[in-house]
């Protein structure tokens, strides 16, 4: 059985650690102290050796992304992506609410390594508590000389500001986030140029996820070898996972990348409710292709899930037991993606809207047998044809749900098994919750 390290969550549940003194008493800011004795390139090399992968979902090596930052004498920016919102994902909120200084320390180290003097923490607007806590910690960090004109007495200068979002899934996409931070609609921008060369206000910009930056202090204090020992090959460190849906103990958990999906569901999250069997699992947020009950002996790292035909994504495990109607589950997601498409690219705006309309009519009992292939056809015109990956994110569940549960869709359309999301035989729903 996997033993669960407490690195990223070691201060969770200790209210004192919300404050500067408490954080320092628990060993905080030692990573920054060490960083300030190193050359910036040494820090980047260390993070590279620590195999830190971007934990917003893409799993791209963080140090490689840092290496793309454009050289300039003008301003450069670090933007922290705290726009958590991929359905199933709960990790960045807890990281900010329980240990804001851990994030700030990661931000300061990253900025020092990259020669950045200005950082913004973009927190989704609904996260009132996280915004309040992180702002208080930023104020404290200024007062303690951790940031400001002289970072810990050094010649390095850094300003950090907290910026709230206002409700838009698309702002979790890094160029959408930058548009939003510029005070505009959160519409993604065509890449290239990538933000590392032309980002916030047209300046070189690194956008990193909260959890990614929260890892950085620990790579400094533990060293690359000890940090890597917590993970798997090319997947450094311990990791936060959220398990939601039909399990006995839903929650967010820190554990090792080497844990399997089966262990995460049954050992960590308490398994299924009595009398229920597993039907399907979303392993990495609603956009990741779904896995069936016999596909869960897979390691929860970026590469293993990729080989299994899915993604670790934001490490958001959504568990569905045998009561679940896959048709209604997909209908719910299509409502989500059509609502959240920013409307900029035709394949996404039209594609998500049509997928939602078709799913709605199937759910209402007005579906046609041809609708199944019609939806697959639509997804074929979406994937890879848009500025950002929201279209792909909407298409992957359609493709995988139909591939793995096609008979259920056929039976639903034929009217033999018209069920609610939770498996109750019912007539079409009329009330709000989709």
């Amino acid at each position, binding site marked *: 059985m996997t033993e669960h390290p407490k690195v990223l969550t070691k201060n969770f549940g200790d209210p004192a650690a919300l404050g500067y003194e408490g954080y320092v008493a628990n060993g905080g800011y030692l990573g920054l102290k060490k960083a300030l004795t190193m050359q910036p390139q040494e820090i980047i090399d260390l993070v590279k050796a620590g195999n830190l992968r971007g934990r917003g979902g893409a799993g791209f090596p963080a140090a490689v992304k840092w290496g793309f930052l454009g050289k300039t004498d003008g301003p450069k920016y670090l933007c922290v992506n705290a726009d958590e*919102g991929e359905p199933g994902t709960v990790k960045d909120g807890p990281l900010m609410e329980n240990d804001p200084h851990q994030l700030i320390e990661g931000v300061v180290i990253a900025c020092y390594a990259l020669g950045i003097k200005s950082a913004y923490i973009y927190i989704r607007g609904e996260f009132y508590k996280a915004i309040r806590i992180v702002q208080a910690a930023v104020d404290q960090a200024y007062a303690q000389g951790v940031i400001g004109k002289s970072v810990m007495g050094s010649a390095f200068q850094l300003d950090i500001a907290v910026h709230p979002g206002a409700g838009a899934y698309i702002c979790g996409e890094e160029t959408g986030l930058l548009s*939003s931070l510029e005070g505009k609609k959160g519409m993604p921008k065509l890449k290239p140029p990538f933000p590392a060369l032309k980002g916030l206000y047209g300046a070189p910009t690194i956008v990193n996820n909260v959890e990614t930056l929260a890892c950085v202090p620990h790579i400094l204090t533990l060293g690359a070898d000890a940090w890597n020992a917590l993970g798997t090959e090319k997947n450094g460190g311990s990791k936060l996972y959220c398990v*939601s*849906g039909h399990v006995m103990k839903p929650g967010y958990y820190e554990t090792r990348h080497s844990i399997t999906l089966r262990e995460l569901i049954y050992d960590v999250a308490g398994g299924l409710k009595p009398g229920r069997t597993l039907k399907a699992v979303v392993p990495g947020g609603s956009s990741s292709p779904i896995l069936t009950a016999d596909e869960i002996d897979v390691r929860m790292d970026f590469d293993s899930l990729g080989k299994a035909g899915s993604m670790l994504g934001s490490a958001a495990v959504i568990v569905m037991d045998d009561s679940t109607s896959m048709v209604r589950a997909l209908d719910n997601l299509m409502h*989500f993606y059509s609502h959240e498409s920013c409307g900029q690219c035709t394949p996404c705006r039209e594609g998500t809207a049509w997928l939602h309309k078709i799913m709605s009519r199937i759910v209402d009992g007005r579906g046609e047998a041809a609708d199944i292939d019609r939806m697959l056809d639509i997804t074929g015109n979406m994937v890879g044809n848009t500025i950002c990956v929201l279209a792909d994110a909407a298409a992957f569940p359609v493709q995988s749900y139909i591939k793995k549960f096609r008979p259920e869709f056929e039976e639903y359309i034929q009217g033999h098994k018209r069920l609610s999301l*939770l498996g109750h035989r019912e007539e079409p729903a009329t*009330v709000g919750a989709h």
Partner: protein
Amino acid sequence: MSVVTPELRAKFDQVVSRYPADQRQSAVIPLLHLFQESHGGSLTTEHQQAVADYLGVPMSKVHEVTTFYTMYSLKPRGKQHISICGTLPCALCGCKDIVEAVQEKLGVAPEQVTADGQFSFQVVECLAQCHQGPVMQVGDTVYGNLTPESAKAVIDALGKKQ
């Protein structure tokens, strides 16, 4: 009288100082939040114009923002606005029953305000509280692991607090 009170203006000045002097538009979102919070949870044309004037950006740019993001409301809301998550993880945990319970308790449809002006509700997309679904959020407070009964009890308690 200007909708920008001296108190609000001081807050505006502080917010704008976080961005480069030539990037005042960045403050659109936080300034709209300040207005909405100080005016009962919704925005008027006057508020949007005041933000545009204060930042020196066209009104259309501000209106684009208020209509793009879901947290802004151009229609009046109740003093307590309830957001119920309707996305998959909460749906798997029975959020449909929560929506029905809240609707029954308040006696109004989504986005409508109760006769006494106290409450309104809407079904929203993922609130990133999936570990404690089904959830609803009222102001800055998240209520998790709801049952229809506990959701109604939350509304009772909020009603008494008025």
